[in-house]
């Protein structure tokens, strides 16, 4: 059998040098009216979390900076997307 791990343990294998300010800003008032909300499924880091009242909570900290969210987002203005400050964000490992 393959070894099952939690999503938190999965993300613990990745190094992030967290920037003080967010590189992605989500206008969750736009998300509240979004019918598709593809980001919830597509984000490989699972950073878009639906709330009980139909909204979305987003945290930028453990982000791969891949661009999936802004590519799948159909709602103009919901996402403001930049790269983190130089030297910050995801750091894939050398051997």
């Amino acid at each position, binding site marked *: *059998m*393959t*070894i099952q*791990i939690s*999503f938190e*343990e*999965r*993300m613990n*294998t*990745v190094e992030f*040098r967290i920037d003080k300010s967010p590189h992605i800003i989500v206008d969750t008032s736009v998300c509240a009216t979004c019918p*598709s*909300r*593809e980001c*919830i*499924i*597509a984000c*490989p*880091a*699972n950073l878009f979390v639906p709330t009980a009242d139909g909204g979305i909570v987003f945290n930028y900290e453990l982000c*791969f*900076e*891949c*661009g*999936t969210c802004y*590519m*799948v987002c159909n709602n103009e203005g919901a996402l403001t997307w930049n*790269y*983190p*400050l*130089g*030297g910050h*964000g*995801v*750091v*894939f*490992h*050398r*051997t």
Partner: protein
Amino acid sequence: MIDATDSFDAIIVGAGPAGSCAALSLAKAGKRVVLIERGPFPGSKNMYGGVVYPRILDSLIDQWWTDMPVQRWVTRRTTMLLTDTQAFSVDFRTAAWGQIPYNGATTYRPDFDSWLANKAEAAGAIVICGTTVTGLIRNSSGAVCGVTTDRGEGDLHAPVVVACDGVNSFLAKQAGLYTHDDASHFTLGAKETLSLPKEVIDERFGVRGLDGVDIEILGGTSGVSGGGFLYTNYDTIGVGVVLKLTQLAAQKQRPEQLIAALKSHPAIAPLVEGATLKEYSAHLIPEAGVAMMPTFVADGLLVAGDAAAMCLAAGIWLEGVNFAMASGMYAAEAIVEALALGDTSAKGLAGYVKRLESTFVLQDHRKLRRAPQLVLSDRVQHMYPHLVASVAERMFQVDNPLPKPGLRKIFAEERKRLGLRRRDLLKDAYDGFRSFG
């Protein structure tokens, strides 16, 4: 930190394979070049589906194989079609790919990209890491003449900027070189790097020493169009999925769930059994080839590598780093010409496009321009793996006392069972032949 008042012949944004080859080539030509990387070291933001084909380095780095960071040389490659319970494989191996001049290697991108950037630095390029380029600077006539960065006093000036800033290339978009921004042109690659002892990898994959295996998988991504891959490093394996962005949500399956499903397939599970997760990673892939490529040149600006959508995602050929390295090198050659003529306008830099056109970079892409769409089409994704696997199963199943039914009969029956129209099959066969022939 360099003095911002320094002037350069060229600024390269992004120290991936495109940027480092551009910087290396320019530095070797005696040009003052600065290479800016937003990660803390080159390659720290980069991941891929496993194999670098480095022969393009022959002209840039003498005997590159002597110190290139290699996990394993790929001497065995398998193309695998999966259904839920079946696997049909074409398996090829050759000793030749384990010897100079080699063919493909698995390597960690943070290792490989750092190595390549070090080569550029050793040749005289100035490499600045931990600095994000925030925009282009234009002169009064609108030509690009520098970049702004997120460092205080961090503006840099040069007659030419090369945008090697990756798949999301904000610089190429800011410059208006992309006329479209279509999610259907992209796939998401999600990968697990899994630890396994070297001896176990050698046994399971039937290789020895530094010989390695690359498996490309069609099917196995449930309802989502895309594919999978599995390749061997020295004492880890990389296993992952490539997923059509526009289908992920509709299928309600998350990337890590699709990796888990692939890993539990009866043909894959024995290969990954007992392996522990060393690192999870994800990245976008510019999948659509020629259909999505931007304008490559503007006044004072060139675009190379993933930023120019030069990834080749054509089913049986999955390449990208080689296209990035070549485009960076050709950008540099064109810049040297343009600087000599004192004309760094789009016209003066046109030698770049000429080089792309006359080499594998655009010739392979043009030849395979129909392939990405064909490979991601519903029939190729969801019907042909079933057709091939079912035909193979019935061909090799011994149903005594019944006699063998014969290939033509099996094929016709399976085609009908799957609801595949002969017309569509012929059309796809024709497209396939035109794409790959």
